[in-house]
């Protein structure tokens, strides 16, 4: 038997206190929790969030790396756990394990133009990378953020999108699938639609994608048409996960564990994985 160091607390959530929470949309809320000790994460990683008695689920870290003990997340009411979390308020306790997963490596983005394609909730994890880049603005080239929502009311992080668009060299393109007669200043259409018209230098551009399962194939295709090679496209995948540490089997994509080897992958790494997209 191998004598790898065994951590008896592998599955144990640590208590964390909600210090701030407010609704972003009808379905999604923003949370800031205090962990007691810094999380020490990379952009694109996730935590396993617990409400003891109800269960546990993977939730992306939405804030860029930070020195304090805070963690920011956006959570959508999707099922039993997330619905219960939505009823919590400031001062309530939740459980956190992690950070888990590969995340993004900032070195891959240094000196590059960056295109972000976020569908719906996909903006939550991408924010951790966007703001990491903005924190060291000079190290990166042009930044283009395509953010697609179902309707104007479903748009996340409206204030932040506005703030980012004020930054030098950052372009934010906001889209909705349909306006449903709500006021809307952005574009109407799928998040992939602006891609053909973007001015892209495929040799010095990288892209980061996150959104619902259907989004990836079309976005990857649109970017490929612009000459972007698969090594330069990063995707953040979602799978069912019960453990976050490569044991429960749910998130397996062929021989790869999404929670360990991902959830961020280079598109080129996925070419051999036939169930990835």
């Amino acid at each position, binding site marked *: 038997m191998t004598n790898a160091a065994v951590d008896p607390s592998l599955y144990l959530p640590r208590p964390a206190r909600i210090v701030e929470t407010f609704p972003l949309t009808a379905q999604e809320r923003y949370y800031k929790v205090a962990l007691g000790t810094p999380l020490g994460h990379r952009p694109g990683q996730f935590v396993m969030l617990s409400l003891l008695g109800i269960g546990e689920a993977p939730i992306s870290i939405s804030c860029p790396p930070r020195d304090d003990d805070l963690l920011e997340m956006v959570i959508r009411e999707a099922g039993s756990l997330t619905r219960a979390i939505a009823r919590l308020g400031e001062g309530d306790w939740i459980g956190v394990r992690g950070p888990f997963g590969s995340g993004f490596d900032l070195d891959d983005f240094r000196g590059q133009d960056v295109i972000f394609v976020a569908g719906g909730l996909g903006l939550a994890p991408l924010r951790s990378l966007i703001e990491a880049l903005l924190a060291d603005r000079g190290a990166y080239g042009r930044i283009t953020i395509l953010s697609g929502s179902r309707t104007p009311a479903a748009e996340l992080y409206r204030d932040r999108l506005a703030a980012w668009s004020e930054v030098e060299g950052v372009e934010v393109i906001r889209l909705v699938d349909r306006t449903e007669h709500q006021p809307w200043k952005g574009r109407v259409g799928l998040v992939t639609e602006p891609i053909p018209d973007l001015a892209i230098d495929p040799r010095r551009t990288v892209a980061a994608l996150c959104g619902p399962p259907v989004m990836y194939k079309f976005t990857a295709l649109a970017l490929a048409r612009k000459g972007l090679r698969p090594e330069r496209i990063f995707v953040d995948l979602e799978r069912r996960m019960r453990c976050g540490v490569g*044991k429960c089997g749910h998130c397996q994509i062929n021989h790869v564990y999404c929670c360990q080897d991902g959830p961020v992958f280079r598109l080129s790494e996925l070419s051999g994985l036939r169930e990835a997209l």
Partner: protein
Amino acid sequence: MAEALYASSESVLDWIANQGSTRAVIAPRQGDDGAIRYEPLEPGDREAARGVLALAGPSLLPPGKLFSPPGEVLFTWGPAEDGSFRVEPRLDRAPRLLAGVHPCDLRAIHLMDRVQADGNPDPHYLARREATAIVGLACSEPCSERCFCEAMGSLDHHEGADVMLAAVDGRILAHARTPLGVSLLADLAGEPCADPEAAWARHRAARPEPFGRALPGSREALGRATTAAWSDPVWTRHTEACLACGTCNLVCPTCYCFDTRDEIDVAHPGCGERCRDWDGCMLPGFAAVAGGHDFRRDLAARQRHRVNRKFAYLPAAHGDASFCVGCGRCGAQCTANIDIFDIARDLLAGSPDDAPEAEVSA
């Protein structure tokens, strides 16, 4: 202290039964319903220990499942002073002896040891595993008509056992494989065997050939054929009759997927436990995510995933030529008679490149 002994069946049974005074002994036993189960033995119950040497047939559930029993508690929680919660892992380190383990199950345990120790080691599996001594029993003949352990390279697997037993010339060879095994043998009445390898050779020579069902190709070829058959109709063919009941996963010694569940105590608000249940990739919803998308809704895609795990994915991730050990349980217990052996044979026989494309939706 001898590394290998010859002993009579009776003294082996005495030896096993007497182990009960120092550790719980778990051994195969045939129930009134005919099924064989690994069950705790009363200390000193020599008759009940007979299953260790006497039984044919694979047990209903593989003995390795003992290390992750269904519904096991991972941790408990209770309120903490500051209004948050305290968590306490539940690690089971009670000493045990698992006796009468057949080579296929032994190999499965060996593979699971690797899976559970790789990456993030699973503390619950490893706690039980490390507290367990194993006495294996080499098979003299195939345990059932579904057995294909030789084809899967399990027949002569000994690694993981502390002591291996084998019938040789009407006696039992007891061969220690580990220092713990050597100390266990100190209690066994028998005569020293000077040349255990020669004894093993005689044991092997007395076995039928081929041993169990044979496959028309190596395990490596099977791995390649499985990978190549992505769009082959073989998956659909072997799922038309499938009921998605998950039996093939749950009885397999190398299936270990799980789900978690919280249990609360209404009488003690703020207290509870998180348990884990066996899960399986053939079961509905296994790969479903919020929003309703299921990455493997199609049954054929689930079958492809299961078989690929045995012959391609897990071998690629953890090493070894196959994660199916050839025990035959999944085929025997599937009421639709879907047997991974038949799938393996079809995979090896078919030349997927010529087969008509049948797109299996993911």
